[in-house]
């Protein structure tokens, strides 16, 4: 827009300050730079109103010690005229360099964190201190936090530019608790682990319950707490049919009343019977050291799997048992 022709028109109408209705909008008396083809009289190239020139970028005027958070107070797209860094980005042509920052779409596409420099973050934290309360003095280590507050709830809030503040992802609630902080005995713990299935992580002993089936975060939180309560109570109860558990379902191998015990006892009794030694009973046999040893090796073999060590232990214990050493 030719700057020189504007003042004349606007000065003639002092009332132009008020907002007019659309139908009487600002009249297009000033033509854009290319006035040539539109005007009736022939204007030569030289007499055409000159094209609007761009100002020099304002990085030239910026002081070296300026307040950068004031230049980029919020998340804003990358403005090459406002960022005084000679940034380059882009795949270079052969024997070339990456493109400069002016007009560089690549720099515009990526998110930039120019508004979150360490100085800015420090200032923000200072300002936000007023909204925070003090940390309880008694909770000065992680273990104490875990001890007093074993359940952890994770929620996420989403902010975006747009007409709606709702985001369906915000209803997700994740509840995490360590099973060691719950009061479970052996059976309860095994039952709980069976009930939750994949939600339990063995290495960290953490039960994670993630709920998103309700439309509101509050409802999902209530549901997660309800699930935890129900799991706890159910795992303490023992149903009648739990006695009928087969070996395949058991968490870990229990030797008592197992087929291995039966087998070894039968074998030993047969051996003893063959040796005409009928006085020994099952309980006596069970009490012997070799049987104990054998039991330990079988249990470790079954629970921990096959390895050199466990297999060699088993071999030794069998040999001792059958008096083969």
């Amino acid at each position, binding site marked *: 827009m030719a700057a020189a022709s504007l003042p004349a028109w606007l000065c003639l109408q002092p009332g132009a300050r008020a907002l007019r209705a659309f139908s009487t909008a600002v009249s297009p008396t000033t033509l854009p730079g290319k006035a040539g083809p539109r005007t009736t009289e022939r204007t030569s190239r030289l007499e055409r109103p000159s094209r609007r020139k761009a100002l020099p970028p304002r990085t030239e005027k910026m002081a070296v010690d300026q307040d950068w958070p004031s230049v980029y107070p919020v998340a804003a797209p990358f403005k090459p*005229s406002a960022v005084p860094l000679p940034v380059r980005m882009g795949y270079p042509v052969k024997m070339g360099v990456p493109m400069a920052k002016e007009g560089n779409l690549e720099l515009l596409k990526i998110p930039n964190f120019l508004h979150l420099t360490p100085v800015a973050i420090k200032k923000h934290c200072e300002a936000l201190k007023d909204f925070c309360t003090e940390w309880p003095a008694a909770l000065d280590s992680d273990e104490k936090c875990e001890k007093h507050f074993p359940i952890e709830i994770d929620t996420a809030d989403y902010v975006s530019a747009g007409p709606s503040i709702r985001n369906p992802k915000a209803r997700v609630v994740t509840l995490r608790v360590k099973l060691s902080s719950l009061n479970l005995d052996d059976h309860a713990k095994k039952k709980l682990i069976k009930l939750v299935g994949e939600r339990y992580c063995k290495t960290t002993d953490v039960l994670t319950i993630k709920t998103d089936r309700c439309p509101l975060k509050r409802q999902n939180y209530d549901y997660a707490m309800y699930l935890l309560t129900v799991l706890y109570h159910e795992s303490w109860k023992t149903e009648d049919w739990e006695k009928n558990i087969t070996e395949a379902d058991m968490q870990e191998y229990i030797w008592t009343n197992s087929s291995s015990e039966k087998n070894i006892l039968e074998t030993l009794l047969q051996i003893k019977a063959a040796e005409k030694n009928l006085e020994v009973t099952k309980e006596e046999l069970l009490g012997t050291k070799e049987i104990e040893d054998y039991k330990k090796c079988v249990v470790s073999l079954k629970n921990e799997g096959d390895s050199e060590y466990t297999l060699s232990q088993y071999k030794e214990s069998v040999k001792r048992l059958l008096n083969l050493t």
Partner: protein
Amino acid sequence: MAAAASARWLRVRCRLSLPLTGRWIGACEPAPRCRFCSGSAALPKVEGTDVTGIEEVVIPKRKTWDKVAVLQALASTVNRDVTAAPYAFLDDPYLTPTSSVESRSFLLAKKSGENAAKFIINSHPKYFQKDIAEPHIPCLMPECFEPQLEDVSEAALKERIKLKKVKASVDMFDQLLQAGTTVSLETTNSLLDLLCYYGDQEPSAYYNFQQTEKSEELEEATEENTVKSKKRAGQQFGVIWRAKNNAERIFALMPEKNAHSYCTMIRGMVKHRAPVEALNMYAELLNNRLHADVYTFNSLIEATAAMNEKFDEKWNNILELLNQMVAQKVTPNLQTFNTILKCLRRFYAFGKSPALQTLREMKAIGIEPSLATYHYIIQLFYQNENVSKGSSLVIYDIMNEIVGKKFSPQDPDDDMFFQSAMKVCSSLRDLELAYQVHGLLNTGDNRKFIGPDHRRNFYYSKFFSLLCLMEQIDVTLKWYKDLIPSVFFPHSQALIDLLQALDVANRLDMIPQIWRDSKECGHAFRSELKEEMLMLMARDRQPAELQEAFADCAADIKSTFESQDARQTAPHWPASALNCIAVLFLRAGRTQDAWKMLGLFRKHNKIPRSELLNEFMDSAKASNSPAQAIEIVQLAGAFSLPVCESLTKRVMADFALSQEQKEALGYLTAYDSDGDSSSDSDSDSRGGK
């Protein structure tokens, strides 16, 4: 940009462990002790349920804040960016406005676009019914401007009044009366309100009329028309209350009238400049033993002041009105006192002591004065511009009182305070006071009171001129970098003031920088500014690199002159500009450009100064070219300058000339000596020496 922030809520431990104390029996049914609802205030302490039982975890009470408190806290960490244009504009070197005219037209264009969008939405509402905004944003939905109810009923009348359709509602009222239905008092009163507010015009026509009035107000605010506009206040602009218009007619038709009816009529009459009728209506009100409210009294004060009487009579009438106010047990508000002060402004010198009385009364009642109050007082006490011994010190008292206070908008004239205060500071030439005023502007939210564009420009122009005049140059330059052009676009006069301040402080090295900035502010074609710059640069000899910088600047200025030439049919180059540019080129050693300038002298028919010609002669001698020397003499001879003779002598003396050159020279001197006598007589008329 979506950002996820995860919050970690710590949950109080459920009472699941068997306690040592044995208080709870039956571990299988523990109830969760503390429910953590998001809105809860305090969490109860975890009692000694820890296994250790030694420490107690005290959870402090959660703080609550309103919706924007966090944003406001974060906003307090950032300041204004001094190199950026105001945020309403696009931050791009091509799209930033370069003058105040441009910035106004950009903002108007933006607003015009918004209006256009609103118009489209309102004329085709069926396409804009889908609402994705959550929570609902009412102002983005299409508005319905047509009345829905078509029957002749009071509800239809109420609807038309709500939609502000003046003519339609008057017609509906008449139809109702003809049909014989009585309209309730409340509805009639609201119809009267509508008519009195808009002066019996449609709202759109009303605002068109008001524009002409506003433009007069603007002139009042600018530097020139301070005294004249006050005399013009009596002229009739804007909507005038016509006798026997619809409001009066309907008022007469009303079977019963209450105080509200009278009050609204009075206020309408005063608003549309019918003070006599307003006072008559007030007399009627009193005759019917009704009481007026405080807004009516405010209007009546205005009406009293608008009557054609002497000042002390008017003041007595106002006092009487106030007494009646007290008698009717109506408490005055801020507007009462502001109206009194506004009217006192027109009383000139007479109004000073009543104004102080008013102020005291205001404080006695306990009403906090607003910025408009102080503005009226300043206007009253500093009406004429001359700062002689008679000027009062009331501005200092005012500033002492309000420094550090944060104001909120209470009066439409609040935004005129800063302008008038800065005007007074400027006329008193008091920089400390100006700093105080500026400090007040920057306290809290007071910067909202700076007013529209022209007032802000006026304020900052005055401030900056005062700074250039009174402040040290370093501080002035700091302010310059701070204010220009991000806060206001300076007049060319402001830049000339700055140049003079630089001259006084011997900082002429800043001139090229100032020239670059003034190109950005749209002053590239102001000849006074360019001439001033060139004159300052060319006045003395400077060290070498500064001379280089000056020569570059001069070349740039020359190019602006040339481009200006190309656009206009009649080229005009000021003579001084030509002189200065040539001198600067010479001093920087750019002899080629300098000789081109000589050609320009002839082309534009402007006269070179004699010192310039001497300098050219020096440079010709330095480059030892007699041809150039002769050319100078020819130029001097073409303009018939008296200095031509001395130049010729010098050429003869200093240069080794060939025979033709001597002849040419001789011819010139012979020619010149004839014209010498005539040139002597009008040597005074040859300007530019």
